[in-house]
């Protein structure tokens, strides 16, 4: 199994991870090897097999629609890289 340079670049954009040019050959090799390992799956006969998402086949638990959490904005924002007036700061998005 091989993965192309274009595929890696596309996936890196989707994953929001900047890649430097010199990292790509090693990634082609490593990801290609991992995908080859994974390709063993294609040999398995899975016709009529239900996918398993949770080992106990549990479903999402529901609860009453009541407020249970208290507001902890100050505590949470105290550990943020940049905040102002109770808002998280990021580089300007709209000019």
């Amino acid at each position, binding site marked *: 199994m091989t*993965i192309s340079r274009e*595929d*890696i670049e*596309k*996936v*890196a954009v*989707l*994953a*929001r*991870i*900047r*890649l430097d040019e010199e990292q790509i050959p090693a*990634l082609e090799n*490593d*990801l290609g*090897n*991992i*995908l080859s*390992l*994974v*390709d*063993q*799956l*294609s040999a*398995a006969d*899975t016709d009529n*097999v*239900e*996918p*398993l*998402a*949770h*080992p*106990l086949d*549990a479903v*999402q*638990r529901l*609860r009453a629609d009541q407020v249970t959490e208290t507001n*902890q904005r100050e*505590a*949470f924002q*105290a*550990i*943020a*890289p*940049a905040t102002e007036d109770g808002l*998280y700061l*990021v*580089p*300007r*998005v709209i000019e």
Partner: protein
Amino acid sequence: MHNKSVAELSRELESGKISSVELTREFLDRIKAEDGPYNSFITVTEEQAMADAKAADEQRAAGKAGVWTGVPFAHKDIFCTNGVATTAGSKMLANFVPPYDATITANFRAAGAVCVGKTNMDEFAMGSSNESSFFGPVTNPWGLSNGQKRVPGGSSGGSAAAIAARLVPAATATDTGGSIRQPAALCGVTGLKPTYGRVSRYGMIAFASSLDQGGTMARTAEDNALMLNVMAGFDPKDSTCVDRAVPDYTATLNEPLKGLRIGLPKEYFSDQLNPAMEQQVRNAVKEYEKLGATVKEVSLPHAKLAIAAYYVIAPAEASANLSRFDGVRYGYRCENPQDLNDLYTRTRAEGFGGEVKRRILVGTYALSAGYFDAYYLKAQKVRRLIQQDFINAFKEADVLMSPVSPSPAFVQGEKINDPVTMYLEDIFTIAVNLAGVPAMSVPAGFVDGLPVGLQIIGNYFEEARLLNAAHQFQQVTDWHQKLPQ
């Protein structure tokens, strides 16, 4: 005191032979003096530990002490601790001080246990050698006397090494594909991965949410039972946590094993297994026969596909879970971002290490348009087949036994540059996570002076049976008492 188990230390505290302040001081001093070559701790919480020890002594004086009151232990640095750095072994969280406790952190706090620090781990629990930590590799206390720096296993390598070096009597750990059992085996300690959902994951930094499970590590099975008594149980804050009664795991430790049906999965005694390791595991099984157990071969025909299924499911879930690290709300942020995309992409490029990035990229690929059915859905179907194998095996056997790892602790650097070779380290442990069943690693001998682990796998929610089987084995063997030179 540092060679005593949690159960023994608890009795010493109860008898008044030693105070928690004295005991905590002793372990803190040991960490300071001995941990240099192992690097098993990321953070040592000396001040907080001494304050907690003092409070524990006061609690005891007031006649309100429980089993854990005043007993020192450590948390894997993946469990959030209010006011104490929680890094997950990553540069991304190197400065992260959570404003809340994980549920199991709160449980140990309520039990009066004294946390002396946070143990080192592979970055975001991704690794089998503890070499991917931003805070440097952990070195196995075993094998150092030969001048060789060997891996402690991973990802809970810090917890395992700290217990092996007698720096703490017990430590929490987590297991997504073998991260409790493999380091426990490689360091000669006893570890338990409970049934998926048995222990709350709230405040446990997520890697692969359908596989992750918090668990226990200590020298003895009895101590693992004492830990699980504190950790197991329903938590409304974790939507996958199971609402089911929790037994007293110490109550059944002394049940006789007569009539216990042991299954040996033939796929786990393959040619990938080091022959000397196989001999040790078979010797351990013979001990069980002496204790009255019966042994038969069973089959897990799809086990050979476990690694392939895991390396789709785990990276896919990791890519989703780790999308939260964006440099906005907490954790690392790159310098001088030019725009929002630059902030995201450079923060993540600089904050994550190589293995974490590889897995995010593989996971993103497997989930991307056009590939979802071929990879993620296919892997989930194979996961069902693997689960069915275990369900069938447990019709014929009460527990399954196998090696934990294919070979003993390897030398640092040996596998780190070849991800796939590293992944094969978990060949005997990963299927357990896919099925969601509980499993232990129990010290069962040595090969070339390095510890060998016996894996004991149980049916869903049969942790008590596993602990019973491990405890009885430890009454007739002393592998778990051996000390690294």
